[in-house]
């Protein structure tokens, strides 16, 4: 039984580490402020998982209590950060972090926007057509003018 508990602990720690790493990647590489914030929440989730795992391993409720505090802290952080994002969005009209790149250090070069290939415009939706079968119905001319297909 003890080995099973040890395996459970190590599995949970690995999963928590992976969640934390994914959060690091997302925070470093994405440019949308809201997605960056999602990545921060993901890091908190990873830490919560490992805290709960340690708490179970040592039969101690302190891990779960700490996760409760993490949840409260995440709620505070979400309120403040989303308020800040709303203010920043009002100032510049975009969620891009690069709109605020004049806050960088003095000796850093400005980020040059990479040229993107043009996205294809959205095609109009194509509805499926039934293959005609049987006797063609008699439809008066004025109806077919207004009903090109059913």
């Amino acid at each position, binding site marked *: 039984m003890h080995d099973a508990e040890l395996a459970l602990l190590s599995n949970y720690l690995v999963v928590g580490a992976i969640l934390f790493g994914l959060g690091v990647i997302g925070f470093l590489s994405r440019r949308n402020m809201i997605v960056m914030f999602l990545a921060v929440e993901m890091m908190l989730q990873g830490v919560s998982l490992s805290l709960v795992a340690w708490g179970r391993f040592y*039969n101690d409720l302190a891990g779960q209590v700490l996760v409760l505090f993490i949840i409260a802290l995440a709620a505070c952080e979400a309120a403040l950060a989303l308020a800040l994002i709303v203010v920043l969005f009002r100032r510049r009209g975009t969620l891009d972090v690069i709109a605020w790149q004049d806050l960088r250090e003095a000796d850093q070069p400005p980020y040059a926007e990479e040229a993107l290939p043009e996205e294809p415009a959205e095609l109009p939706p194509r509805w499926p057509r039934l293959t005609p079968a049987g006797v063609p119905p008699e439809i008066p001319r004025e109806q077919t003018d207004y009903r090109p297909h059913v």
Partner: protein
Amino acid sequence: MVAALLGAIGIWLLLPRGRVRGRLLGLALGAVSLGLLASQMPGLGDWVAQSLFVILAGVTIVSAAAAITLRNPVYAAISFGMSLLGTAGLLLFQGAQFLAVATIVVYAGAILVIFLFLLMLAEPGGRAPYDRLTWEGLVSAFAGAFTAGILAMTVTCTLVPRAGSLELSKREPPEPPVAVTHEQREQGILAYNHVEQIGRALFDRPQPTPAGQSPGPGYLVAVEVAGVLLLAALVGAAVIVGRGRGSLPRPRAKTAGFSSRGGPPDA
């Protein structure tokens, strides 16, 4: 470590770079790394428990990866919600029922909905250049994979005894300082009155335990501080948003017919 490196390359290929090239390869690499990782995980003994854990962890990790790699931020938020559900399942698997429900209620119910509101406010739909491009994707992918890989390798080397994978793991695994039996867990952290126990841990005054140990920490002050912090964050958010909008428009007494205090018009 190989799994972490493969996963890093897969994530880098999956990150939006303005082109659609290489996403399939990234998916394949990510799947291979997940498979490697799952094969290295030690078994939980029971195959039902093992498969349940693998499914839950797979859902969590795959949807977390989707949350940071999808181009449309609305889809990213939704798959983050999926990852939250997976996390709640993992917490439930550990016997932390109250935390699982609290995670769903607070994160998926409150925070994620606010995210979605904000995203609807901005409404780029994944076509904005800042959603199509990432910066320093390779460096950040390797940074994150390095973090996760180092952490996971530390865990597997110190906790899991396995012969021959690394030099470090050939020694005996360290004995845990407290050996907890299953019966103790069933009376403690896996108890039936789990919520009551969490409440007692939060609000009771610390009792000195009979075995000569020092009394556990009491959390009453910390709970109060957390409440004050929540209140301060609420007020702060309101102040920040209100100040960004400028002064509030004041209702005019003459046109509206009554003053701003809501009383009768003072002639």
